[in-house]
């Protein structure tokens, strides 16, 4: 009876996954002109500062051990929020890039492919960075840097701007500000 119940539960979970998939699948592809409605802005300078090893060393020298640990945990929690935002934006931009990849203009299609590659790479690294940041909240003295994520995000934004310039140059600045 236990095995049967377990299998029925597995079937129900599979149906829930399908239900979630349907909801997700019919999410519209964001238009560049209204990208800010979908994305979550990231203050790249602040994010960089939060995960900068030099900044961390400075705080370590200036503050007593207990205070430093408390502050560092707070900083890492904020950094986690930024990583979540970059990951979320990467998923949105992946859809934008995927749609533009089928564009008849090869220049646009090539720029879109670069955006897709960049978004995929960032997405995977963001998940890894999340794990590292959680580990560092537990062990604030550990020295594992996730600084690469900001460079990757900057690269993603550049790809987006490049694609926007080809499609709608007038809104390139606005698109850049939206992410």
């Amino acid at each position, binding site marked *: 009876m236990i095995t049967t119940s377990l299998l029925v539960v*597995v079937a129900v979970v*599979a*149906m829930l*996954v399908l239900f979630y998939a349907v909801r997700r699948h019919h999410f519209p592809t964001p238009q560049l002109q209204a990208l800010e409605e979908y994305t979550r802005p990231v203050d790249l300078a602040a994010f960089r500062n939060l995960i900068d090893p030099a900044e961390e060393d400075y705080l370590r020298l200036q503050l007593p051990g207990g205070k430093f640990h408390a502050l560092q945990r707070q900083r890492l929690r904020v950094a986690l929020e930024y990583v979540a935002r970059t990951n979320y934006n990467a998923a949105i931009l992946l859809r934008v890039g995927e749609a533009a990849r089928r564009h008849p203009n090869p220049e646009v299609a090539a720029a879109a492919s670069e955006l897709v590659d960049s978004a995929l790479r960032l997405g995977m690294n963001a998940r890894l960075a999340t794990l590292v940041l959680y580990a560092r909240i537990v062990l604030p003295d550990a020295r594992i840097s996730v600084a690469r994520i900001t460079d990757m995000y900057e690269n993603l934004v550049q790809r987006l701007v490049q694609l926007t310039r080809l*499609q709608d140059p007038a809104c390139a600045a606005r698109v850049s500000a939206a992410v």
Partner: protein
Amino acid sequence: MSLSAIDYLLWAISALLIVITCGALLKRKLVHDLPVFFTYVAYHVLRTAVLFGIHLLHLQQRMNYAHYFYVYWAGETISIVLGFAVIYEIYRKVFQNYGALRQLGGTLLGGAAVVLLVAAVLTAAAAPGADGPGIVRAVFLLERSVRVMQCGLLGFLFLLAFYFGLPWRNRVFGIALGFGLFASIELAGVALRTQVGVAASAIYSQVASVAYSCCVLIWIFYLLAPEPAPQYGGVVLHHDLERWNQALSEILQR
């Protein structure tokens, strides 16, 4: 083997729907794009016709039930193999534009298949069911194990695509959705049928038939629905306007 009016009705509906699916694949010229899925659907059309023919001969007492039983389950074995091939085709379509991810996704999916196979064998050993030893029990245990694997593989494929944020093509999504729904309803149904035994046979076969028809309806819906026009995310291209303008000027000058 006596069938009720409801059984015949469900059989006729599912037969009609699978023929429509085959027609939809031909109409949309998807045979080359989705060759394995087309083979699966065409095979089911053929299988339905053969089984119905045998059933008619059985009613005229020119064949006995054993013939129907063996042809049905032999056909089911081929259907199971084709079903797994369809899942592989779905995986290839989802990952086709992402070289590096395809390798990683394939490895993960292969790992999941091994784990699911072990899980299916363990559940078969742990809960052999209410049917006495013999071919019927073996057949239902095999069916249950296969549904465990199909459900798990499709669920894992969906989760993998979510995890990497991969978008699905509408039709491939529809095929996976229909297949997943059928596999999950079948899994619950066959698990309960194996537990309860022969007493649940009639209701199980009707539930399976309804589930199959729902799955085929989903396929028809996604196959016949037009693929959404690509949304490029931008406005009309300045480059393209210039190109069109140039082409038009050349025509006007001729």
